[in-house]
């Protein structure tokens, strides 16, 4: 029996599991199984690669020991991190893992460069290696910046003057240098490392000016970059499973990026090149004519909700940060007991990633069918007595509809202003993640309930319990 064929069949099976896994991941009922199917395929591919190496070469025990040791370290660390992380921190972690994949692709390219460069007729293989190096590296450094931004370590977009031009020049320089190394034919480790360093810097410069609100799109884009980098590796080795896995993620990731952009109604080029979330574009324009904001106490809010027929809750990232998803579920149950209809209005980009809010609410056992997406719930606001906005800001900002000069103009929003009463819970009057003011707070139907989401909601629950 030819072991090479066994490996080929294993790769075939693994490739199919990736396709089937992704397919299953796109339906709520089968999603979890789909993830396991793909994970099983990945296990097969890794085990097969180790057990049936191609070529005649004798492989020393040291190398097997190193591989096994590295896999054990990676598994333990990866498993523990993934198990321990809080649900609110999930987007950061995805970004971090994505960066690891990019770094892995870059490391492979660095090693393989020394094997392929300077040999006869290897120009195009070297070109493949350089492409993998550049894309993997950009994905790595970009993901780390995205991680820091989501983490809050680095929350202000930093822009050099005319950063667009600088970045474009850098991008061209990286690829020209890469092409020069590949087609030059000579082995030049210094230039290769120079390309690596330049790509590293470019990845940072690429993400640094992008505002926090656009981070999900960036992560999704970098995700597809890493897929592409993996595919270049597959191309180099003639390895089918790397090729299918990488390209699948590359194309699916690109489409996912575009779908997300569409949900936010922002063309991709605006995300990458446009200003968003910066202070300058969204300066205060005539605070005086806004009118005043109105405070409301916890007990008044409780009364309003208690006698309402229908309450819609609009959760935002503030809810997640305050870890208030369990309390909100308690509030929902309490209102239900009193015959109040409660629904959750989920904006496509609520939280830090599309679907993030659903994950958080599902974690606290909120019924799946109560999470209503934007298009379906928007007509319902007109028949709603009380809307409770918790830690959300930009997704309910009417400027998206009325103010063409606003950076979020055109983004679809939740039409909360159609409801009878709007209660907005915020920690303070600070602007939202996009850094822009919100006219909703000055609406005569709006009352502000200041305070930490968890604390305020707990008080609300206590207050409601005391009422009969």
């Amino acid at each position: 029996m030819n072991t090479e064929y066994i490996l080929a069949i294993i790769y075939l099976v693994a490739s199919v599991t990736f396709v089937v896994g992704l397919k299953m991941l796109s339906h709520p009922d089968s999603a979890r199984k789909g993830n396991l199917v793909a994970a099983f395929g990945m296990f097969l591919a890794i085990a097969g690669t180790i057990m049936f190496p191609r070529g005649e070469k004798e492989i020393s025990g040291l190398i097997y020991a190193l591989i096994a040791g590295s896999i054990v370290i990676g598994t333990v660390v990866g498993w523990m991190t993934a198990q321990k992380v809080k649900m609110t921190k999930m987007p950061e972690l995805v970004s971090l893992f994505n960066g690891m994949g990019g770094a892995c692709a870059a490391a492979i390219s660095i090693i393989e460069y020394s094997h392929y460069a300077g040999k006869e007729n290897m120009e195009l293989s070297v070109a493949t290696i350089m492409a993998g190096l550049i894309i993997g590296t950009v994905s790595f450094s970009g993901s780390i910046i995205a991680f820091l931004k989501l983490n809050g370590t680095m929350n202000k977009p930093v822009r050099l003057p005319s950063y667009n031009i600088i970045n474009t020049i850098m991008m061209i320089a990286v690829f020209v240098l890469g092409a020069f190394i590949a087609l030059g034919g000579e082995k030049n480790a210094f230039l290769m490392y120079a390309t690596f360093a330049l790509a590293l810097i470019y990845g940072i410069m690429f993400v640094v000016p992008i505002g926090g609100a656009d981070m999900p799109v960036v992560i999704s884009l970098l995700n597809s970059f890493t897929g592409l980098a993996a595919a270049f590796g597959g191309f180099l080795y003639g390895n089918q499973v790397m090729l299918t896995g990488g390209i699948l993620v590359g194309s699916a990731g690109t489409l996912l990026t575009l779908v997300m952009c569409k949900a936010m109604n922002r063309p991709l080029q605006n995300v990458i090149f446009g200003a968003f979330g910066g202070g300058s574009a969204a300066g205060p324009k005539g605070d005086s004519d806004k009118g005043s904001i109105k405070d409301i106490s916890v007990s008044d809010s409780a009364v309003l909700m208690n006698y309402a027929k229908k309450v819609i809750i609009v959760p935002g990232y503030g809810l997640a940060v305050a870890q208030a998803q369990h309390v909100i579920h308690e509030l929902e149950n309490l209102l239900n007991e009193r015959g109040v209809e409660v629904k959750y209005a989920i904006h496509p980009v609520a939280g830090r990633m599309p679907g993030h809010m659903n994950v958080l609410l599902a974690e606290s056992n909120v019924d799946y069918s109560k999470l209503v997406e934007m298009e379906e719930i928007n007509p319902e606001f007109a028949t709603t007595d009380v809307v409770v906005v918790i830690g959300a800001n930009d997704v309910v900002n009417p400027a998206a509809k009325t103010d063409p000069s606003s950076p979020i103009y055109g983004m679809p929003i939740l039409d909360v202003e159609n409801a009878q009463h709007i209660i907005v819970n915020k920690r303070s009057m600070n602007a939202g993640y996009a850094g822009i003011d919100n006219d909703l707070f000055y609406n005569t139907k709006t009352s502000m309930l200041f305070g930490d989401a968890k604390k305020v909601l707990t008080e609300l629950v206590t207050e409601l319990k005391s009422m009969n």
Partner: protein
Amino acid sequence: MEIINFIGSKIEMIYIVILSVFVGVELIGKVPSVLHTPLMSGANAIHGVVIVGAIIVMLNTDPDNYTSLVLGSVAVILGTLNVVGGFVVTDRMLEMFKRKKR
């Protein structure tokens, strides 16, 4: 022409690339936005397949080439992190979607 030779010699892979592009696009076509995050996370784990490349590098490395051995081991660790962490995080997210009623 070198480029034609290159394409010709890799024609099967180019077929895989083109068809995979369409499969990927087709798969994501109609996803409810609820699943965007888990899907991104799942896709993130799948591109961890790059670890296969890292293992191949290691298997072909000369046991005396310490630089490559170290760098290769680091690549395997990073790739494993991507794969294991990615799948576990995705599973944790999806665990939340269990239906209460059946």
